[in-house]
């Protein structure tokens, strides 16, 4: 469904990605793990065309994504949940959720509001929250609103950028459950980046480890604990000693 081939990206002198190769199949849930600053967010921003790779290519459904129609097609068929939610604070909750319906698909406001309330119900938010401002919501509620916005147009592929960052363990687990359930209901593929190993074990079919700008390991989630890879072992067990240097 989505393929990254040899993607390189640098910011000034700092080379972040050094040839990322990655594929995700339809219906598959891939989680990318890696230390802070290894380029996980940059990888999905390159995949979504938010950043232009210096080298390498992105393919969606076998077609090269190179701006114009191919990029518009990719964005129309994908959803994205940003780390901080990235909700529009000038709009009400339901306007945020139905943004793509109103401004991209030309759906009328009454119909869009109805569908937004349905999407909010899927992430266990009541209709009363639809009329609230996003600044009035808790962190967990904002994540759920962002999830509702990501799924409302029934995407075939959803990107999740650190979906549980900043949430308490119980809320994080609830958000993980919602992600699994919604991805399953839609039959969509998912690419998630996270540090949270509880999220990894709950969300992932497969796990890929990004280190020094490359994917250095990929395997099923069941192989995480006996991968035989020192980087994976260090990351999974959260040890300061090992081949990965803490970014202090």
């Amino acid at each position, binding site marked *: 469904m989505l393929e990254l081939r040899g993607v390189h990206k640098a910011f000034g002198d700092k080379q972040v990605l050094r040839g990322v190769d990655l594929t995700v199949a339809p219906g598959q849930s891939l989680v990318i793990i890696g230390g802070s600053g290894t380029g996980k967010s940059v990888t999905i921003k390159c995949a*979504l065309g*938010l950043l232009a790779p210096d080298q390498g290519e992105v393919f969606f459904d076998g077609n090269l994504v190179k701006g114009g129609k191919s990029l518009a097609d990719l964005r129309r068929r994908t*959803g994205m949940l940003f780390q901080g939610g990235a909700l529009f604070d000038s709009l009400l909750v339901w306007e945020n959720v139905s943004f*793509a319906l109103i*401004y*991209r698909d030309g759906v009328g406001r009454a119909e869009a509001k109805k569908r937004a309330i349905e999407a909010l119900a899927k992430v266990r938010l009541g209709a009363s929250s639809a009329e609230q401002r996003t600044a009035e919501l808790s962190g967990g509620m904002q994540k759920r609103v962002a999830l509702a916005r990501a799924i409302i147009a029934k995407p075939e592929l959803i990107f999740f950028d650190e979906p549980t960052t900043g949430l308490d363990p119980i809320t994080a687990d609830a958000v993980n459950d919602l992600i699994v359930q919604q991805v399953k209901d839609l039959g969509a593929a998912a690419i998630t980046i996270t540090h949270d190993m509880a999220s990894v074990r709950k969300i992932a079919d497969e796990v890929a480890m990004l280190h020094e700008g490359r994917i250095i390991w990929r395997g099923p989630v069941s192989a995480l604990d006996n991968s035989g890879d020192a980087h994976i072992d260090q990351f999974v067990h959260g040890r300061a000693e090992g081949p990965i240097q803490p970014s202090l």
Partner: protein
Amino acid sequence: MSSASVPAILRPFQLIGRTVVAAFREVGRMSAFAAGVLVACVTPVIYPREVLRQCLKIGFYSLPVVGLTAVFIGAALALNIYTGGSRFNAEQFVPNIVVLGITRELGPVLAGLMLAGRVSAGIAAEIGAMRVTEQIDALHTLSAKPSRYLYAPRVLAAILTLPLLVIVADIIGVMGGYLVGVTSLEFNGSLYLKNTWQFVTDGDIQSGVIKAAVFGAIISLMGCYQGDCSKGGAGGVGRAATLAVVGAAVLILASNYVLTSIFVRVGL
């Protein structure tokens, strides 16, 4: 060529060259941004709901600050002209010069400068905050172009509302001069208004309104551009707001001179 490979004696030239290249690059980037937004202003899709929302924020909510500025400037102008005019027995020209100064120059320039502070900084801070909180990235992923959804409505609103604000400022500014003229300078009220009305021409009003539309474009484009370029969290957003205000103020004063020169040449 790296600075290490340049002989020490040539390094000042290298610095000048770098500065000039960076300045041209910035002007090029700004021009491309402005062209993209102006095209978005005149081609579909335009979001009327957003334009109206921005007209309210930029135009209506700026009325108090523009009105207060205009009344005090009109009053002070009348006093100054009276003092200056009395040196060669020309006190009777106070109404004429007040209306000329307000409509052609002070109305549009001061309204523009006040809005550079209020609106340009506000736009830069709002868009800068959206940039650093990934809301602009979110717009892209939702297939909405920021140039159409965010920038064009602000630019259209500023171009449409600033001329209206300037007309209001003209009226209030003239009334400021009238109040001082009647209460402090012993002018006859009806005579003051008659002189004002007979002296002002359509060209005076038109030149101020045209300037206001240009200043509106400058104010909103600078706010949008600096906001769009901001990075690095709260510090970056603050820097964007400062650059927007300074850039808009300088461009308003520079374009005011250019426009005035053109109006003088074409006899407006």
